[in-house]
């Protein structure tokens, strides 16, 4: 059993595990260790069973998630028809934008099998960031890079054919 696998509350050092996971995410990798420690400390663990929702489409749940172990599925409810988008797994980080401001969920995220994730609430994130005002430019840069990277990958995977989606491309132009 690796250190990141299932363990009972409190037996292993959750703080160190959180630190290890968060430093690999695009948003938190920009922080120096001293401030990263605070975020790792502020994150709480949540254990979900198969089918439990981490968040639901349409709600503003004010928090970001980092999967510690297990798997979760992103779904889009398209007028009653539920479409599976993709799966996220260990180490994946979802909801960085939610930490920065009101961001209504456009998808739902549902646990597939037993899943444990780190949850960081916006209120905690905002208060902690206020303690490190020097880091703000780095956060902006990280978010911008993530958005642009996302679109580059999207365009790369798009190929020549995307039906009528071309006029609506360009999230990196925001």
């Amino acid at each position: 059993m690796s250190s990141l696998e299932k363990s009972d509350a409190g037996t292993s050092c959750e703080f160190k595990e959180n630190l290890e996971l968060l430093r690999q995410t695009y948003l938190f990798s920009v922080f120096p260790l001293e401030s990263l420690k605070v975020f790792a400390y502020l994150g709480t663990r949540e254990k979900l069973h198969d089918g439990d929702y981490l968040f639901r489409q349409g709600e503003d749940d004010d928090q970001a998630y980092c999967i510690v172990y297990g798997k979760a599925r992103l779904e889009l409810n398209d007028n009653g028809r539920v479409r599976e988008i993709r799966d996220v797994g260990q180490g994946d980080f979802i909801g960085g934008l939610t930490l920065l401001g009101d961001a209504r969920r456009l998808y739902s995220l549902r646990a597939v099998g037993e899943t444990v994730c780190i949850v960081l609430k916006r209120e905690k994130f905002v208060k902690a960031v206020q303690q490190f005002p020097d880091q703000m430019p780095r956060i902006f840069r990280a978010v911008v890079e993530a958005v642009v990277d996302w679109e580059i990958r999207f365009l790369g995977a798009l190929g020549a054919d995307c039906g009528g989606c071309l006029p609506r491309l360009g999230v990196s132009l925001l």
Partner: protein
Amino acid sequence: MDKTKRPIVRRSLFSWVFDGNLGWQLSLLAVIAVVVFARVLPLEMQKRIVNQAINLRDLDLLLLYCGFYLAAVLLANVCKYAINILETLISQRVLKRMRSALYDHIISLPLSFFRNTQPGTVVNAIVNELVVPSNFAGMAVSTPVANVLTLLTFAGYLFWLNPLLAAVSLSIYPVALIAIPALQRRANIANQKRVDLSRTFSGRIAESIGGMHEIHGHGAYRIEIRKFDGLAEELKKIRIVWSLYRFAVKTTNNLFTGLGPFLVFLMGGYLTIRGELELGALVAFLSAQEKLYDPWKELIEFYQVYQDGAVTYRRTMEFFDVEPEHEREPSGRAPLTLDAHLEVKHLSFATGSGIRLLDDVNLELKPGEHLALVGFSGSGKSTLALCIGQLNSYGEGQVMIGSQEVARLTKQDIAANVGIVFQSPFIFEGSIAENLLYACDALMEGGVEHVRPSLDDIIAVLHQTGLFADVLRFGLNTVFRAGTHSDVARAIIRIRHKFQDRYGEKFRDAVEFFDESKYLAYSSVADNLIFGAANRDEFAPAHISRNDYFMKFLKKEGLHQSLLDIGADLARQTVDILGNLPPDTVFFEQSPISAQDLPGYKSLLEQLRRKKGRDLSAEDSRRLLDLALRFTPGIHKMVGMGPDVQKVLLEKRTRFRAEVSRDDPAALTFYTASEFIHSQTILNNIVFGNITTASSQTQDLITQNIIQLLIERDLLETIIDIGMKYNAGPQGEKLSGGQRQKLVIARAFLKSPRLLIMDEATSALDNRSQARIQNLLETRWKRKSTLVAVVHRLDTIRNFDKIAVMKAGKIIESGSYAELIDRKGALYELVGKK
């Protein structure tokens, strides 16, 4: 405010002397008359003892006069004590009256006054500056009367002994009367500066305390210390100057009075040598003259108290000499019941510096209509709302509620008809219930006919505003002390069994049940070892690290050192993570060390590093042990607790139980499913364990099931009632931003005002709560109360009857949502931008 009465800030200091104290002052005069007599009598006895008793060698006479002498001395001292008591009584009564009257005046002052006044200034004025003036009031009659009388009596006695010598020895006093006031004038100037500077100083301290998060956030300690030191230095200098002049007055006085005997010796000696005065008469004269000093000294001291008191009093009152803008209560009539028809005509409002925040605003709302004020920040929305609520005094134009102009109404008229929810909610120290009923209680105490809401009304409003779940949680998180609420405790045990039967399996992952054979990650190390509730204080968690029996057990079992190591590790990690963070609940709710204790542990770690763990003082060891005993691995995640340690602690739990049951069976009640645990919350008692899930969905589910069980046992209202007693903490700091906002909204709803003003009242609420309030306004309050709402989220304004878009102090368009969107004007643009 009663017009016939002079406002406190214009009252003279002398007006306090007799006001309400006439009887006391007269009693004081009576005692003084006795004391003057008792002071003079010994002189006469002295003379008679020498001239008659000793001269005639009459022992009986000697004893008689000595008896009189003794009685007079005793009487004088008893009277002096009585005078002190009466003076204290009068000055404390005056202080209380002054404070109440000044506070009464200050809280009526317009809000604009408080925008420019630091809270510290007000605190200093009420707490410190009124003390000297009130001391003066206590002495104002007694000291001059007693001492002038004594002085005159002794002076008369001196003249009677020898007119020439008396005239010479009294000639110094007129000179003193010229020199002393000159010095005192300078002392007064210094005192005036001191009062002003103290006010600034107090204000500055209060400001820094209020902005502590900014100071910590920017590490601006040096800037603040520099600012503080500057003022402290100035205050030091001015206090020194003030004291120098005060002492100069005293010294000058002493010098003059010291000259008295000199003149008597010179003059009297000359007369005696020439045989014109007997030696005995000279001695009698000298001893009589000595008695002049005390009353004179007291008079001069009184003069100083008067001067200091007068200056302090005048400066303080001048500072608050501002007129309240509105009468507080109507005189000669009951508060008006207004028709909730609102009309604003040509309303303008400018700041003191002439910036126009509102410019010719016009609007009309029929009773029960709802208006949303929208626009960019700084466009004047809140200013307009506050003008309607009589909190801003407008310059031009009119605000009419029904047929009455707002500017002419009393505060009580407004309170009886208008409810206001402010942008930043303020919660007072006190229970949820007190805060919730604040507006209703204010009306009732103010004489407005208003029915006190019943528990049913309150519960309805709690549901409507979404505060119900919060209050229930406060109730469920309450700990009953042993011997209280025994009926409720019994019912809760029955609910516990039901909960186990119905939901035990379902919440297996979300609750850590109290199981004797399992280590509880969400309980402290101490709770795990003891696994019971203390029946005596020394076994309670707060005292356990000072409990000798427990300490002996730890040492005997070899746990002491390993706990010290855990404590040190925990302290190191916590200080490493939280060492530089401000004392915010967000940072410290998962910490085993409170923000307050953190500096102490920092220096403890420093000691530990220097001494490398050797020779730690007993107190430091105890603090580390205390920390380890508080360690709750499920919450304090900075350090883990390995399964081996847990296993050892479980073994020790069994052993401790066996030993304490043998040695001191009454000390603890061990956790059993059939007993209420008085060290645990109601919630933990119901689930018979700790809730471990962080998921709000699961927590809500548990709460819902518990509500169901509470309803079945008819206990829900009891728990809500207990929750309503939860103390919100100073400025409501124990509540979240959302809870505070819901509480002030509930407070306004409970009052059911005819006109409701909401200034961005839901900005701190989550989407669901915001939607709930919006829905409530539309279903319950439309057509019932007129509403003026300053709104920042445009997705909530669709169903308002009217929307007014503001820009630069003007309403640039108004109408229904559909009309304005069709017009494709400012609102269309705003909504589009959103």
